[in-house]
């Protein structure tokens, strides 16, 4: 499973992209977040407040109850701020 971090999540985790192999019990984004928090204090910090975080699976926006599998690309990022003012 490929994990991507953007904006301040990249700074806090110290990682832009990592390949992980969570146990089979990790079935949803919510499960995955809890599991990823164990990887480092930076991960725990970055993922501590789920209200500040948005998630995409295979480049589509999803909710915390979305399923995840070994071949998925999962991205964590803050709410987007593109466009003009």
């Amino acid at each position: 499973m490929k994990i991507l971090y953007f904006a301040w999540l990249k700074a806090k985790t110290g990682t832009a992209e990592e390949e992980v192999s969570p146990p089979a019990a990790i079935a949803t984004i919510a499960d995955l977040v809890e599991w990823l928090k164990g990887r480092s204090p930076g991960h725990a910090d970055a993922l501590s407040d789920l209200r500040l975080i948005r998630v995409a699976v295979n480049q589509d926006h999803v909710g915390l109850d979305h399923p995840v599998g070994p071949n998925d690309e999962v991205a964590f990022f803050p709410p987007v701020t593109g466009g003009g003012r």
Partner: protein
Amino acid sequence: MIRVQAEDFDPGAELAGFAAGNHKVGGICMFLGLVRDFLGAVPDGAPPVTAMTLEHYPGMTEKQLAAIEAQARARWPLEEVLIIHRFGRLEAGDRIVLVAAASAHREAAFEACHFLIDWLKTKAPFWKLEHAEGGDLWVEAKESDDLAAERWAKKT
């Protein structure tokens, strides 16, 4: 058409070429977003912002913008759609984004163009990092942008 690029673009040339020769078009609505002067955007006492960097998620950006274009085409009778969004370092006065919609009718052109920019701002994976003398700061999403996007969801 979707373009995601670091390079600047020429809005005049884009408008001149947009829907050119398509005589089914009665109205074109275009929105150009620029980096506004940072003066006044900074709280009292904070160091002035000098520039910003737009980070994005390559691949997802194109996918989301294409989905937004498809949504607009499904909702309004559009002849042409154009979305150009830049990433990378930008300074005051720089162009950030251009969206345009061409339709037989002006109301469709206006609504589709407005929808495109509103949805882009809440769906396309871009993040603004403002650079100031004291350090860098990630711009937080605005609730007003969420409300602007929701307005279109309610209409369906």
